[in-house]
């Protein structure tokens, strides 16, 4: 079997030890880090995401696959930086000010990284200014915000209002999520998208990047 296919299959099984070894082996065979990432790691993660979306597998399986993804990424990342290869995009994520729930946000971060994005996680209880400042300084493609409490949802609108004031609205896309958040709410406050889970968030952010490339 093709080594990239082996990487993809080991990743799907969540076998991070194997993914690490195979990634080294592939580098030894003079395969480019970019090819290993795209056709091995990301290819495997895409299948995991698809299965999760179809309810064929559950979250624990996805988390193990993501760990395997990291095992490969840890080896490839320094090489990619050396060669000046860019990640597919940069996303700033965090939980809204006053919200200390972070499992959902962490999952989105894991999935985005798993899909090959660069993720800057601001953590919990993030003030609106911090989201906007960081996104601006890092030249991020998107900001992802999570709220788990209905009472903290209005903080999301503050971030969008700030982006408008800074003339960044539309340039830096906004994606929101969390248990009480809905599509309706996203429209109401002017967010670019709502994602109902981590895999959906990855698809949505990929969609943003595609649109950006066409512009």
């Amino acid at each position: 079997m093709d080594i990239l296919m082996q990487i993809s299959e080991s990743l799907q099984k969540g076998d991070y030890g194997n993914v690490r070894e195979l990634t080294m082996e592939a580098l030894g065979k003079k395969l480019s880090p970019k090819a290993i990432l795209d056709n091995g790691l990301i290819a495997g993660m895409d299948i995991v995401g698809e299965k999760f979306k179809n309810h064929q597998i559950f979250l624990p399986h996805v988390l193990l696959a993501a760990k395997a993804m990291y095992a490969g990424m840890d080896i490839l990342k320094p090489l990619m930086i050396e060669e000046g290869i860019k990640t597919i995009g940069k996303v700033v994520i965090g939980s809204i000010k006053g919200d200390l729930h972070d499992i959902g946000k962490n999952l989105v971060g894991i999935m985005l990284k798993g899909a090959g994005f660069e993720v800057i996680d601001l953590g919990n209880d993030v003030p609106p200014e911090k989201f906007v400042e960081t996104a601006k300084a890092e030249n991020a493609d998107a900001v992802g915000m999570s709220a788990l409490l209905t009472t903290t949802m209005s903080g999301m609108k503050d971030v969008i209002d700030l982006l408008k004031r800074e003339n960044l609205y539309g340039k830096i896309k906004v994606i929101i999520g969390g248990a009480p958040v809905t599509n309706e709410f996203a429209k109401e406050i002017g967010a670019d998208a709502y994602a109902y889970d981590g895999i959906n968030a990855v698809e949505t952010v990929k969609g943003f990047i595609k649109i950006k490339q066409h512009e």
Partner: protein
Amino acid sequence: MNEFLDRIQAGEILIADGAMGTMLFQRGLKPGDCPEALNLSNPEILQEIAGLYLEAGAEIVQTNTFGGSPIKLAGYGLEHRTEDINKNAVFSVRKAVDGKAYISGSCGPCGQILKPYGDIESDQVFYSFKTQINALIEAGVDIICVETMTDLNEATLAIRAAKEILPSLPVMATMTFDPTPAGFYTIMGVDIKQAAEGLEEAGADLIGSNCGNGIENMIKIAREFKNVSNLPITIQSNAGLPKLDGLVPIYTETPEFVADKSRELFELGISVVGGCCGTTPDHIRAIRQTLISMKGIHR
């Protein structure tokens, strides 16, 4: 044997209370504040809420300790106050119910994903639950309620912690399920049969479901639990999922609607019926009215 369990085993149906968070936010809890910190700063609020649920007809009243495990409290830098936070919660409820209702010590998830999927060790989580539950038991709870669990391993750690400290103390254990095309599963992929078997094996005395996606789904979940388990079942449903009125989220299921639907839960032979997010003393009062109007059917 414990008197609470005797009554349940004899076929009696008991009403539990409704939401805590919803009531706390109405009373000035600010977003981002630690709900359990109120146990130290404003215990009178908890006494008031317990009193309102008692007056509405709840026979089981919960403590404000859902996030009272040291791992969870550490998010607010309050882990060193674990003992006081949990004990005060019990004392506040006791002042209100004064022996007229059972005091149920709430234990929610630790907020982190356990190994191998996440980063926290089972041992740490077990110790965290044990620390919390020890304080609840020392303060004199009648029941431990392990709730809103999605990871079966985490739920069993909490149950085992309680049973290790005081085997005779009744433990209710409930998990939160979502509807999928393949049936009901927790986000961690646990189905109802696995949950029922795992919770029973760990030593839970009552098992079931709380939170979730509204009472109509909860009736289906309750039916599945009945089909796969002989243990008494407890059901505490949200008042639906919140919908938005402008920017204000509101729970859509009225006390009348929930009370009407709860008839089906009673007919299924569910032993403990209460409410979760979005339910109020009015919901509990209405559920109780339904039960009173049906009495004689089951006893």
